[in-house]
């Protein structure tokens, strides 16, 4: 449990650090989003395929979630 708490704390700190400092120098101007606006550059483009993969691996392995919520709504595991 101690280990998990430590992982959670490190993760939280990382998020805050990146949000408050590191990210401010990154990014583009609004008129530079032509490539990022394309559908295939969306992080969950082809959400159907991602969902089907989640279902396969949820039923065959001990890990789910991360990219999204971990619940499966399925009795396969």
């Amino acid at each position, binding site marked *: 449990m101690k280990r998990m708490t430590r*992982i959670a704390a490190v993760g939280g700190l990382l998020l805050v650090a990146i949000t408050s400092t590191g990210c401010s120098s990154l990014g583009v101007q609004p008129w530079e989003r032509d490539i*990022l606006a*394309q559908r295939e550059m969306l992080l969950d483009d082809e*959400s159907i395929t991602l969902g089907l993969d989640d279902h396969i691996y949820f039923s065959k392995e001990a890990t789910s979630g991360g990219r999204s*919520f*971990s619940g499966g*709504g399925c009795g396969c*595991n």
Partner: protein
Amino acid sequence: MQLTPEKKIRGALVAATCTLLGHAAPAVADEGDWSFDSAVLYYNETDRVTAIEPVFTARRELVDDGLLDLKLVFDSLTGASANGAMPSSQPQTFTRPSGNGFYTTPVGETPLDDTFHDTRGQVSANWIRWLGTDWKMTLGGNVSSEYDFQSVAANALFARDFNKRNTTLSFGLSLESDSMDPVGGVPTPLMRMITEGSTGAVESVPNTPGLDTDDVDYRDSSESKTVTDFLVGLTQVVDRETVVQLNYNYSITDGYLNDPYKLVSVIESDPAATNYGDPLYHVYENRPDSRSRHTVYVGGKRWFDGDILNASYRFMTDDWGIDSHTIDVRYRWKFSDQQYIEPHVRWYSQSAADFYSRGLLDTDAIPTEVSADYRIGEMTATTIGAQYGYAFSENSEFRFRLEYYSQDSNESDSGSNVAIGSQQAFDLYPTVDATIVQFSYSFKF
């Protein structure tokens, strides 16, 4: 539909700022526009499970500047699934989950329950709404039903943009409630499976405190569990061609976490016995009644002059003692205006749960928690394949995916304390191979 400059700008903003944590990204569409996506998955394991899964999604731009996503999924499963028991030098007979009849496993083979058969239907909906200029809210619901399992879930996700919308911070909560009604009822954990030839009441398992013969025939009709998920995410536009994502997911599952159809074999450990190493009987597994998981996910996309690299890494650790690593890489090679090929490689590795055991010796006390389900054992899995895509027009696209999936146990026969006697001649950790085929078609009007 032709995109207006306004739509293009909005699409750009949406694409770059949406955190996409478990929810479909909003399409760029006019009010009232519909877009559809459909797919049929065929999943086939060698000598085991076959699944056919059609999926249909619809997305509508709402008049009040929101989006509505609807999703329908159907599953049809047939075939055989490992019941957890160990092989034997004698044919083994197991009771069917319903309690009516038996199935027999030949000498030396991994026992498979060949009655595995189910049909599942799932409906889910997401409502996405912008709140002012910087906030976005997503509310979702999900209902799923199959013969022995029902699930209801609701989730909420809030996203806030920063840094000229180059940075998005998200947080969300999901609550899921599941109920299970196993075929034949819920078996009492750690009790022997009644097999052919058993007469009268089956005696209790030796060395199992708290259980006696009165428990043998007792079966609950149903059990339940809840899943609570917290999600925090950060999406960052790095440059004109790169976007990355970092998520942290904390999940707590409480309730009945056993697989009611899974067994653990207790084998003969006396070297002088003629059936040395063979299973004497099988008990129903028992897992802890709670599980908490921490998951960190890092992923991103990078544009390379028309091609796209999509890579991610995920680390999970839980209080069952399982750690896992997942690496997923796809490269979309757009070799013409209308066509692309996308090779895909996925590598997965997990350690075993603390209570995982391939089997038990008859001289050992039955642990209070034990499971022989290979899915919580130490394993490595690889997926390799590719997808081909063909765009008929800006509004319709066909895709075909073919992949090969292989699971190899990292447990070794030599390292197992139950690889004794007859078991030394058997494959205790067989590889599971599967073929994945998928046809997809998306269109909008």
